[in-house]
């Protein structure tokens, strides 16, 4: 990453904050984000494209008498910065105040030192990302696996955040990501992901071999009847459920009608073995960072404690409105989760399988959609290998089914949680999630006739 360019960006950010304050803003937050990443996409066991992305953005959020506005500045020169600041005050004069807006955090803050989020070897990785793609393809090409598809990516991100309330936070992180699908045919495949902040934790071989091993599981395929089944969710599909649950904890989603957790604070929302945490201060967390979007140091938030909803996610403004404390979850407009963790349980995957009389092991899902965000009614489609369990044993694979149930029901029927966790980021999981496999009893399965 170009250090000189980033330093110029920091100077521009300081000037922008100065001019925005001078133009009459009560609150202002200026953030600089620079990102560079290398990506190798592969399909049919061949590399299909090699990509390099570089971006920098300088953006500003400001309040002028509760008139909330934001803009971005394209270039770091003085003219563009002054123009951006002038524009913002004029823009604010055209919009309405939001009486619900209660300000931003008061700094300064002290930030922890966290060397776990950055690895110089990742920043200097260069074209060696190609090696990871090759290793993934090679390790997954075993047994009946005919094709391997996926994506390997390495990225470095630097941020600089300053506010009118004496906040100054500079952060730097690296990330490695592998998404790999081992394919036997269109109806028979397995998908795994690997994520890490550093080279040491990036288990390409393990990810590829697990995908291949699952794909190679050679069992007959049978059609199953619609009805209630116990579902063992692998980490990849359960991460989708947890991402949706953490989203529903955002006070913004609650107020907008996007949450099934409205009016549930202090009440039971899941089985008592279920504890859900958002912790962006966790070492090595794929969504961890030093601060939220208004510069508040990140912290551990227990969202659901042994089944009881303990808090919604807040920024400073929403927290003041609800007479509570920020959870360091800004999102300046909508508070959001950053690094979701389901507390581990005591079960091995084998123990879960042995405990199931009539169930399905779901290893991936796809296209999860709500019928009603408020009630949490949803459906999703198992993708890749789905295995039918009868009397504690894997009997066959199945296809063409749909999970159609509700989030409150699903959370209340979590019956066992695995002891081995995995960090997940995937096509349908936008916020990183750390979860073990999970057994949920009596979930509704449908299929077309």
């Amino acid at each position, binding site marked *: 990453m170009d250090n000189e360019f980033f330093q110029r960006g920091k100077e521009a950010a300081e000037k922008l904050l100065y001019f925005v304050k001078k133009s009459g803003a009560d609150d202002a937050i200026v953030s600089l984000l620079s990102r560079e990443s290398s990506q190798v996409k592969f399909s049919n066991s061949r590399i299909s494209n090699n990509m*390099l992305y*570089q971006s920098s953005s300088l953006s500003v959020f400001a309040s002028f008498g509760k008139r909330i506005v934001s803009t971005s500045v394209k270039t770091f020169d003085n003219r563009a910065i002054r123009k951006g600041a002038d524009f913002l005050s004029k823009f604010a004069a055209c919009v309405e105040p939001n009486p619900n807006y209660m300000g931003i955090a008061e700094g300064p803050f002290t930030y922890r030192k966290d060397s776990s989020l950055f690895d110089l070897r990742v920043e200097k990785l260069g074209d060696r990302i*190609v090696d990871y793609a090759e290793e993934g393809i090679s390790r997954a090409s075993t047994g009946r696996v005919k094709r391997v598809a996926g994506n390997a990516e390495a990225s470095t991100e630097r941020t600089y955040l300053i506010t009118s309330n004496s906040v100054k936070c500079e952060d730097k992180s690296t990330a490695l990501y592998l998404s790999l699908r081992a394919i036997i045919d*269109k109806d028979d495949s397995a998908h795994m992901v690997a994520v890490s902040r550093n080279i040491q934790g990036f288990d390409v071989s393990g990810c590829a071999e697990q995908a291949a091993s699952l794909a190679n599981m050679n069992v007959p395929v049978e059609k199953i009847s619609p009805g209630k089944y116990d579902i063992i969710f692998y980490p990849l599909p359960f991460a989708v459920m947890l991402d949706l649950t953490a989203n529903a904890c955002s006070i913004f989603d609650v107020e907008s*009608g996007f949450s099934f957790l409205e009016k549930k604070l202090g009440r039971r929302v899941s089985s008592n073995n279920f504890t859900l945490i958002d912790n962006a201060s966790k070492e090595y967390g794929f969504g961890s960072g030093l601060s939220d979007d208004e510069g508040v140091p990140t912290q551990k938030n227990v969202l659901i404690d042994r089944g009881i909803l303990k808090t919604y996610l807040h920024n400073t403004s929403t927290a003041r409105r609800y007479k509570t404390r920020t959870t360091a979850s800004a999102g300046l407009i909508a508070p959001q989760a950053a690094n979701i963790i389901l507390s581990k349980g005591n079960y091995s995957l084998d123990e879960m399988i042995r405990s199931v009389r009539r169930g399905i092991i779901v290893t991936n899902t796809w296209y999860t959609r709500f019928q009603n965000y408020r*009630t949490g009614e949803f459906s999703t*489609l198992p*993708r890749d290998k789905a295995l039918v369990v009868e009397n504690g044993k894997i009997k066959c694979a199945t296809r063409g089914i*749909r999970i159609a149930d509700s989030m409150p029901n699903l959370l209340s029927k979590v019956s066992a949680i695995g002891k081995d966790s995995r960090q997940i980021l995937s096509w349908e999981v936008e916020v990183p999630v750390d979860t073990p496999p999970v057994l949920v009893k009596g979930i509704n399965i*449908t299929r077309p006739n």
Partner: protein
Amino acid sequence: MKQSLLDSVEYAIKYLEKFSSYAEARLESSDSSGFMMKNGLLEASSQDSYHGAGFRFIIGKSLGFFSTDNLAKKNIKKLAEKSIRATKKAARLAEPISLGDEKRYSAKYDVKDREKISDFSPDRKVSLLKEINSALSKSAAERYFSIHDCVTEKYFINTSGSRIFSRIPRISFYYNFSVLSGGKSSQRSWMYGASAGYEILRKWNLPETLSRESEALLKNLAKGVRLPRGKVDVVCAPEIVAIMVHESAGHPGEADRVLGREAAQAGESFMTPAMLNTRIGSDLVNIADDPTIPGSYGYYLYDDEGVKARKRMLIQGGMINEFLQNRETASFLGVQSNGAARAVNYSVEPIVRMANTYFVPGKQKEEELIESVKLGVYMKNFMEWNIDDVRLNQKYVGAEAYLIKNGRIVAPVVKPVIETTTPALYSSVSGVADNLEFHSGTCGKGEPMQAIPVWFGGPTVKLSKMEVLPKAARRF
């Protein structure tokens, strides 16, 4: 577009030409604004702009791509060198790529915005949101709206000599609202979008449209009945038909999915090259995709590989007719690209995408289709839907829906569910009306995710003898 930016991409192309057999650049500059209102309060107002360029090149038989918003020549050269090194290294395992032969174009086109986006002041946009909020506030307990506009200028250049300039203004409006009645709730999420200026608001008539929808949902909650069990005829209004053709004709017809290139992302397709010219539905089924429809949300005249756009007939007379192709897939399959390569912005590679997919209208009237049903359901719009990753197994849950008895709409129906397969769906088509309507969406594909503007549309269509599940367990 600034001359200095144009000079930078010209420089980049000349530089890349030294090392590659083919190179192209997409320079893009965009100004946008967005306003979001929640329960009557203005939560966010933003105005943004960006510029940047994406570069694609072939070295040997390997494809490389890089993008940046720092268009200083020194930076471009440094990135190009890095990207070339990685692309050369990947050659040992790269899919041999050919982009085939394409014509060279010099073109300039734009979309006229009669009420210019730049002239439509922020307070007018806020007033619109307030008006919609006011229209809905009596019937909808929770209301979330956002309006967004952008004007994007794009300059495409390649080493074959093409130079294409475009300017496209786009406006979109997204909404979600909840209605509550008797301890129950129902929700509606939808959007409007077009390539146009703010004159489009008159056509959308948002306050009245949303108000009518919320009243209908309330009525549905209060008076909805359950469907009788068994197979019934379903009359699908244009919005339902639109999502159906997008999901189960457009997506499976994307050649990159057919060839497995999206296998780890958006998935593959049940369709294979061998299925071209085979039957997938009744002979009433004609489905097209056409980027050149004036005013459409997915509008373009040249795609992001510089190929001239044209209408594509995906399904004709019930037969699979044509896939959506970019240059790479077309070359692989031995055909010509039909101009379906799109990138959501300069920073990502162009991939095969839909633009404006629609069920071609027939000659019947919607009323005739309803009158022809002895017992069935009329589905006006929907809330939940999904489809599997090879685009066979799909589900649509009606939001506003009605029971049809002896050719007449007699009562609202609660959440009828169609769960079917693509061949079963298209084989059941027994009537096609003439009332073509387009709807708007943001279609997701690729990695990084490329959420791209599209239209999807169709007329009212009758499906015979469909299994429709009655979701409600009791009468209201």
